[in-house]
């Protein structure tokens, strides 16, 4: 089943960003299934449920109410069931501090939310078409932040 489509999850408290995200994938000609959560607590509740389907790629906003992206990242990496999920940090800011911290905590890629829909589609299509096996092996701090 997983071979037929890529299962994606986005956790972001911003309604507009969730809209852009789903719109972008609906316009992209990639077979994906997108699920969104409004904050970290919702996300973790879902992931912790016994029968939940684990996503192929998880997009994490950092600045969320109740539970931040960083907290989610720590929990996910501590859980063997979830630790295999490819994690994309999807944030408005790209401060050195955030990049450094999420890299150390084991995120796979860092995307700064682009300022046009065209760029958004481009960056998302690039992310989902990454060969994760290869990317994870050659991951370093310089290619952690995805530049377009």
């Amino acid at each position, binding site marked *: 089943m997983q071979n037929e489509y890529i299962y994606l999850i986005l956790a972001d408290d*911003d309604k*507009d960003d969730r809209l*852009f995200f789903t*719109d972008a994938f609906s316009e992209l000609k990639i077979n994906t299934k997108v699920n969104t959560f409004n904050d970290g607590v919702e996300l973790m509740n879902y992931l912790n449920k016994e029968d939940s389907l684990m996503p192929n790629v998880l997009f994490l906003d950092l600045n969320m109410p109740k539970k931040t992206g960083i907290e989610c990242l720590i929990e996910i990496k501590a859980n063997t069931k979830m630790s295999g999920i490819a994690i994309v940090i999807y*944030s*408005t*800011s790209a401060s050195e501090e955030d990049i450094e911290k999420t890299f150390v905590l084991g995120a796979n890629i860092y995307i700064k939310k682009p*300022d046009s829909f065209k760029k958004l589609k481009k960056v998302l299509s690039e992310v989902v078409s990454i060969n994760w096996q290869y990317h994870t092996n050659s991951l370093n701090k310089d290619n952690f932040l995805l530049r377009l």
Partner: protein
Amino acid sequence: MDSKNVFKSVLFLRIVLLMGLFIILVIGGFTYKHISDLTKSTKIVISTYEVNVELEHINSYLSNAESGHRKYILTKDTSYLEPYFDARKNINSSFLQLKKLTIVNAKQQENLAVLNNLIDKLFTNFSKTDALVKNDEISTESFKTQLFEEKIILDSIRKQVSEIIDLENKLLNERQKEYQSDLKFTPLFFYLVLLVTLLIIIIAFSKINTDLLKIKAKNDQLLIFKESTNQSEIIGKHGNWVWHIDSNIFTYSDNFFRLLGEEPQSFEANFDNFLKFVHPEDVDRLAKELDKMIKNEELPFVSYRIVQKNGTTKYLKAYAKAFYSADGQKRLLGITSDITDEIESFLVLEQRNLELEHNNEELSEFTYVASHDLQEPLRKIQTFISRLEEKESKNISSTGLQYLERINVAVTRMRLLIDDLLQFSRTNKPDKEFVVTDLNDLLEFATQDLAEIISEKKAIITSAILPKVSVIPFQIQQMFLNLLSNSLKYSKNDTAPIINIEYTKIKAKEDIHLNNAVKSSYHKITFLDNGIGFEQKYVDQIFELFSRLHDKEEYSGTGVGLSICKKIVDNHQGFIFAESELHVGAIFTIYLPE
């Protein structure tokens, strides 16, 4: 040097005293000798006189005897013989006297013996004459002979007597002469000795006088020193104390009392009285430290609090060192300073630091808000515009699309401003680490970041080989980036930008820009371009925040880039200067300390 002089002076005075004593002894000896000589001479004169008197006596006794004898011869009255017999007795006693007087003189003794013989002879003669008289043989020849003999003997006696007197007078004269020659030298000698003594006394006096003056001058200096110490103690808020450990006696300087809030010397200086002022919580600790002081003979600073009688708490700091007096008495010499002001200003400083830290936290919170929350709506506006342009362009008029384009430009500019402002505030962070970095690498990274615009404008960037310097790497890279992008941004439309980077190492005193430099040598890096430049009169404005010299429609700067450069060189204790000629180019010169 001084103590040597004092020692010399003491030695000198001792020598003078010994010489004086010696001279007085010599004078005493001489005086004694001369007086005893004088007494002797007087005795001799007296004895000569006595000898003469006795001889005169003998003469007169003989005359009496002779006249008595004559009267007897004429009268045959034996009563006239009485003076004659008395004379004999008296002459004998006179002779004894004479013998005593002339006992030291052999010649006189001899003379006396001759005289004695003559007298004996005379009296024998008298006896014979008497016998003739008794027998009435006066007119006989033998009587005449007898009388004649008598006359001769008497003459010899007189002669002998005068001889003795002459000899005695001669002796007297000789002695007088001798004595007078002695007497002649004595006053001269005394006078000379007196002069020498006087000279020595004057020298000693002048020496003592100069020493006294020196001591007085030293005393004056000591007084001044003491007063200046007093003043410095008052101004420097410290006092000193001495603890005579063996006798457990304390002395406190005036200002030590003032430190305790008391009038100088207003209570007895001892340990118990001092402890009354020490803050109760500090008493035990201080007592322990003082014990250590006595044992270790030297101790680093001890801080403690005191409470003055009016309730004021003061912070004191003490330092003590043991020293031994000349007689081996152990003493602790201590200095105590009032550090209340320092402690208070330290506390204020700490408070300020806390406030500053708090402010910094607020600032970084603001930075986060600015970077994240302010950017987010703008980004969404942009994204929505892009969606409108993409999806709804058919439904919007061309004017509407133009408005959308204007909105997009405005929003982009707003984001740029926020980004630059953020960057500016980040360069404010003080906790950046200095790392020795190859500036060539930093320049290379900056050039890479600008690769797109460089190729677009066909810019040529040449650089001298830059040094390795201890810097905050990302800041210097930022500065290079800002300077390069500045040159690229303000290039002439019709000319490809040429940026030349030069480097020299210079001494601060060799460059007029570095008059106020702290370090002695600097790395001088110069960015020269062939852009539009600016008028030199605006040179002071270009480093100000948000200051722009060009139309923002034409040139997209925010007026932050060069402010960031200024901030960065400030962070590195460096300098940045600009000079330019309009339409010719601009030169930015950076000085980084070596």
